[in-house]
């Protein structure tokens, strides 16, 4: 066949002739260039990328839905068999690097946390777990904190047994509950089942893709109705990227939010929470669990702000009343004779309340050594 004619024998246009002449060369060139680019990236760029401000979420552990009607608390690693447990608010999630805990010789460590977790709710919820040591993040923010509505519901109900569930079990539990609620609200069973079937699928897909990212779970729970209403324009699921490259340090970011949170807690709520926390801690100690209360590092601005609401002495008194050690990482010695001011890098926070990833690794190592008695707390 003439190279300048088409299959049907018609003369080719100039564009078609050029396209035919090119053949597969553009594709080959693209692949070669991409491979070279990737090799170059690997060789020259990877090592020079600044360390991320936020730590990577490298623990694929199953999401734990604490229920029924209690949550969301979140767990990392196998909390059912963990020997060392870290319990508290989002500072526990951000500031504890479980890799460092493992490197420090503590392979059986787990982590349970909740957003603005109120320890007076969280501690009773985890009391059945089989840990032998527990680190509790004690701060003004966890003393009668403004909880999310679902967590608040537990205040009027007896604290349930902490029920660790797989994602599938949690979904079944949640959707069974949700189905009844929606039908009670007047939705037809067909509509409800359709909605929940799709919800389960979307949630399962996004959660698996997010390696158990609690963000995905929360987002879908919160936006479940809006999601379906706008599904025609939100076809592709969100995928995360090197977000940490774009994350920047802003020590004052959470000042206003923290003040708003602390403003909402009344003195009465704090008193009540304090009594519950002391009782829970005593209960843990009575059962032979080694408990450490820890004041996690925050920025000087947030620290001063928190002190306006709850004094350091009051936090210390809680630990003393429960008969457990209290570790303060702001001004007390980190190592023997070492102060925060001695450390040029300090404990840098990315938003005033949560440590940067590099700082969290240093802090985690210091904390583990401290609770093992290798350093002064």
């Amino acid at each position, binding site marked *: 066949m003439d190279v300048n004619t088409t299959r049907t024998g018609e003369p080719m246009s100039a564009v078609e002739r050029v396209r035919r002449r090119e053949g597969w060369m553009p594709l080959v060139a*693209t692949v070669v260039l991409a491979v070279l680019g990737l090799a170059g990236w690997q060789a020259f760029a990877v090592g020079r990328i600044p360390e991320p401000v*936020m730590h990577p979420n490298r623990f694929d552990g199953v999401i734990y839905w604490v229920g029924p009607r209690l949550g969301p608390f979140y767990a990392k690693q196998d909390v059912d068999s963990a020997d060392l447990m870290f319990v508290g608010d989002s500072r526990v999630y*951000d500031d504890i690097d479980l890799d460092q805990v493992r490197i420090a010789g503590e392979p059986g460590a787990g982590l349970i946390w909740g957003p603005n977790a109120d320890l007076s709710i969280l501690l009773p919820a985890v009391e059945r777990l089989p840990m032998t040591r527990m680190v509790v993040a004690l701060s003004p923010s966890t003393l009668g904190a403004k909880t999310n509505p679902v967590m608040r519901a537990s205040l009027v109900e007896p604290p349930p047994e902490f029920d660790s569930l797989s994602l599938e079990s949690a979904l079944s539990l949640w959707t069974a509950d949700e189905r009844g609620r929606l039908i009670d609200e007047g939705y037809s069973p067909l509509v409800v089942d359709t909605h929940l*079937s799709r919800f389960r699928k979307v949630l399962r897909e996004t959660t698996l893709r997010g390696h158990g990212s609690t963000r995905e779970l929360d987002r879908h729970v919160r936006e479940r109705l809006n999601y379906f209403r706008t599904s025609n324009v939100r076809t592709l699921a969100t995928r*995360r990227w090197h977000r940490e490259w*774009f994350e920047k340090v802003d020590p004052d970011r959470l000042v*206003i939010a923290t003040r708003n949170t602390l403003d909402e807690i009344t003195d009465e709520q704090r008193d009540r929470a304090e009594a519950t926390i002391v009782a829970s801690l005593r209960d843990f100690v009575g059962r032979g669990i080694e408990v450490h209360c820890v004041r996690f590092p925050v920025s000087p601005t947030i620290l001063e702000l928190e002190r306006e609401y709850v004094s350091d002495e009051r936090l210390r008194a809680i630990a003393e009343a429960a008969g457990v050690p209290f570790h303060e990482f702001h001004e007390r010695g980190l190592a023997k004779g070492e102060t925060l001011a001695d450390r040029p890098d300090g404990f840098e926070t990315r938003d005033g309340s949560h440590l940067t990833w590099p700082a969290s690794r240093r802090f985690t190592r210091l904390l583990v050594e401290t609770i093992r008695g290798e350093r002064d707390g």
Partner: protein
Amino acid sequence: MSFDSGTFWVLFGISWLLWWRLPFSWAKTTALCASLIFYAWWSPFYLPLILISATVDYWAGGRIHATENPAARTRWLLLSLATNLGLLGYFKYGHFALENLDAIASAMGMEGVNSAVPWVIPVGISFYTFQTLSYTIDIYRGRLAPADSFRDFFLFVAFFPQLVAGPIVRAQELLPQFVRRSPPSPWRVQNGLYLIVWGLFTKIVVADNLAPEIDRIFALFPSGQATPAHMWLGLIYLGVLVFADFAGYSALAIGLACLLGMRFPRNFLYPYIARGPQEFWLRWHITLSSWLRDYVYIPLGGSKRGEGRQYFAMMITMVAAGVWHGAAWPFFMFGVYHGLGVVVNRFWNLRFAGGRHPRGWPFDRPKGAAMLTGRLGKIFLLNLFIHTNWVFFRAPDIPTVFEYWHLAYIGPFQQGMGWEVFGEARHLLLVLPVVLMHSTQAIREWYGWRERPWHRVIAAAFMIVALVVVRRSDTADFFYFQF
């Protein structure tokens, strides 16, 4: 099953193999099966709806074509319109209507209606409804012959690359391609792969990374930490996000079709280099705007029945475009805003620009610096106009939109701009590729610059590297817990 999921690529890989290996008739059947699996993956409960829509339209289309009686033809057309618009209205707008009835009843002190029933929107209903409507209307107008077989027609309705998010491919564009299989050519395969890479890049690298930042900016409202600079960054990010998201999906769909030897119409033509709202709609979601032009604007009179009637038709068409995107008042306002934009644009063109076509390209290449400056000025104004309007897409309600605009436009005079925010705005890096894409297209159009194969080679290699780097990342963004 979305285009960026592994499941989809397994399904597509099997479909692609069968498409080229089997006889064309069998290939179409397997493509239809794959399309139904793809759709059922979202929810099998929606399958009957698309089947009903396709069956009614296939049947009505055949009957319209078979009879010469105008009254009978009109009856069959009305049946098709009632079925499609009824389904769309019930499932997409039913909840919205009931909610508003409920609000009105409550405001009048009457007992509210139950607005809690029809709130599940079948995936892609807006897209396939418009496709099937165009089929019967075109047959009614004598511009199209009915499909040869129900299978071909159903495949046209449910063809998976464009099923859930467009582009809106019309029957006269797609049905003829089901008659004979186009042989694969190196250029077509490479073009398809390039579009797929382009779509994945804009979606995964650009859009998905801007989305959390936009959430963060909107979350600054209640905390009182928002500055005008944040609002302006939000406008820029939102405009880029919406483009990257929609255009990325469309490019993926067109690329997938290319690999199957099919040709889909272009859906986005670098809309942010438009020089006015009218031209913007010739470049933005082209298949939707051309559908609305042919089936709403022109039937309403178009430009043939006087200036006033034209403005009315423009307004209605733009409002239809707004509510097509979603059943909510912000979408309605989105349409009104664009309607006013195109009306003013048209008015200006008629009075001061000699009634020129909104897009002069390729006949009015800029001559000299003054022309170029003028053109860039128009593009700047257009972007200001368009990006301001995207807030309707993201804000939960209309008061939030006005609050946003107030802070963006009045805020700098009241509290200062807060320029330092721009200095730390690393997400602007993600805006760069989109600016670059638009800039090269502008140069291409204005100066007749031809795209060379090596341009695509470099661009594709860069995007592949970016995508692979993305895949290597294993981080989660816990931006939502800012306590």
